[in-house]
């Protein structure tokens, strides 16, 4: 077997993950715990990186292509690094009509990312949402669980600034 990933010494999160995998190893149909293991990995790392999937592949002896299949099948797995905050622009009909596309453009520029990506400072991950049930406020975006409506480009930028300063202040 050729694998260098099994010895991720130095990162305690891998020790933790290994402990978890080891606790399952003697169960019947060990491989069927893959989803649980990936969940644990996501809890530890925030998302599933190639490195982490290779590690799981190696330690559980499950081919990487199969792990990739599982990781892409379930929506609850993140395959990219997640920012501290998730910004989702509503692309529902009402918001779309009221200029959701402009909101999205503003955010892409301001954060320097495409949809699904995380800003370099690690603070924001940009996403899209279907109607979030606040059509009266369209166009709308959500930051984590908070809804922001009646958006304009300026308003979007000032909201983002607020979050950015808070995050930096906390750090």
């Amino acid at each position, binding site marked *: *077997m*050729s*694998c*260098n990933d099994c010895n991720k010494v130095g990162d305690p999160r891998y020790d933790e993950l290994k402990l978890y995998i080891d606790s399952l190893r003697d169960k019947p149909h060990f491989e069927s715990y893959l989803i649980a293991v990936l969940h644990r990995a996501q809890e530890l790392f925030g998302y599933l990186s*190639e490195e982490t*999937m*290779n590690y799981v*592949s*190696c330690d559980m*002896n*499950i*081919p*990487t*292509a*199969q*792990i*990739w*299949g599982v990781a*892409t*099948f379930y929506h609850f797995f993140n395959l990219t690094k997640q920012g501290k905050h998730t910004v989702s622009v509503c692309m529902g009909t009402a918001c779309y009509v009221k200029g959701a596309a402009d909101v999205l453009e503003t955010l892409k520029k301001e954060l320097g990312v495409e949809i699904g990506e995380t800003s370099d400072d690690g603070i924001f991950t940009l996403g899209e949402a279907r109607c979030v049930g606040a059509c009266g406020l369209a166009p709308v975006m959500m930051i984590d669980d908070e809804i922001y409506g009646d958006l304009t480009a300026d308003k979007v930028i000032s909201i983002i600034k607020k979050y950015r300063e808070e995050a930096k202040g906390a750090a």
Partner: protein
Amino acid sequence: MKANEITIYINNKQYKVQKGQTVMQAADSLGYHIPRLCYHPKLSIEGACRVCIVEVEGAKSFVASCAAPVVDGMRIHTNTKAIRQARRDIVELILDNHPQDCHTCERDGNCELQRLSASMGISKRFFEGERKHYEEDHSSKSVVRNPNKCILCGRCVRMCSQIQKVTNLGLAGRGFETVVMPAFEQGMEDSVCVNCGQCINICPTAAFLEQGHSEAVFDILSDDSVVKVVNVAPSVRAAIGESFGLEAGTNCEGQIFASLRKLGFDYVFDTNFTADLTIMEEAAELVERITTGGVLPMITSCSPGWVKCLEQFHPDMVAHLSTCKSPMSMAGAIIKTYFAGKIGVDPKHIVNVGVMPCTAKKYEAARPEMNTDGNISTDYSLTTRELAWMIKSAGIDFVNIKPEEPDNPIGLSTGAGVIFGATGGVMEAAIRTAYYMITGKEMGEVKVEAVRGFEGIKEATLDINDMEIRVAVAHGLGNAAKLMSIVKKHPERYHFIEIMACPGGCIGGGGQPYPMTNSIPLDEKSLAKRASALYNSDDANELRRSHENPFIKTLYDEFLGEPLSEKSHRLLHTHYQRREPNGIIPKEIEPLSA
């Protein structure tokens, strides 16, 4: 009534069948061919496409016949109006999302989806569904992946994991967005793909294809500034006829050589000759390793899919690989040195084309380790399918053409060279010559039956000068993986191992013609016919042993000296390397009870 027999009714006719079969298997044995897509007898049952539905009286809905077992008293209907309509709807649904560009598609005329839809009586299309718009993956030297043509039957995924144990492919994503791809959506080039091309063979559509070299070769053929040389691998002659409607196993070597001349090649050579040369070097290497305590078991290296498989999955075993280049790369080396000298042409002005049963040969040709004194040994490597297409495209009447002989000196070959194309052939050829090298005598019986046939792993013990030589042969990478686990557990068990990446050996190569309407991929009957074409050619040859080839003798006298000479080492041998592509780990395979 016998214990295991039950009674079923198909289309109101009564039959006695064995218990424990599926409805589809029972129907097959009774002469009813139920349409199917995701099912393949050598792969696990997926039950995904539902093309194979039948009506079972008393069942609430239609039953997928590939997955449902027969039950005593079962009344099955395969061809009612309702079932025909339902099946047609299923296939139409597939077509709705399929790019209907058959007239520019490589599989046109040899596509399972086309055949299926024609057999459903689908003539007009009323509805255009959402099309897929994925990027094609051309990164690999050997295999092109085009998800737009994929109908998600999953056969390639199971082929790559269950038969080949490479598990490069998976179904990623869900629903309409499901795509067959390597881990991490990486290009085939960076993946663990070993380039065997078996996914191409098993795919019903054009979603997997070889990286095409035929247009480039056509360009070369009209270039007067270069000398055009071609060499044809053993197994191509046993299979190419199928592309022209001939029976599997029709030996077409004369037609191939004649067609290649008509296409415009200046020198038409036979890779069989360098197969003989490979045997001279490989048998000598084996004898040397055995007598001087070298690394054993020695493992053959002529299958480039296998070589990459070993390099990445068993990197600790690289030293076990024979250092011999493959017959194709030896042909290139000899053409660009010895032969170039003979015709007085700078090797830079020679273009050498290999015609191979194999997609991985394209990858091998591009490996810098195969170069000859800084020149690429094989400029282009065509698959059997590509050559067949070129012959058709150039309007050559392959079936009726007058057979011709290859050119010398790289033309004459022995029966040992031609059997390279079938699993066990390299082993048998090597044994014939190694026996002579060790004892100075010829073996009594020239055939080595124990290493012939399609058993996944074959073993034989030979007695040569009171020395016990133990050998093993595996074909298909799943069997190779099993054999490697045995070797890791019992390192002393074998002296010499032959491994071919493709099921059946090169005759089942990833570049061979697609199955005709009356056959399916991996069908052992067709493979056996191709193999017998090679064994018959061996029987018919007066020369059965590589060391009897007079032109091989001349080549050593005039040029190489002797096997394993310094010159041989420089030109005919190479080295291999550990590889660690992203996302490895084939499943460890339980060793046979050994």
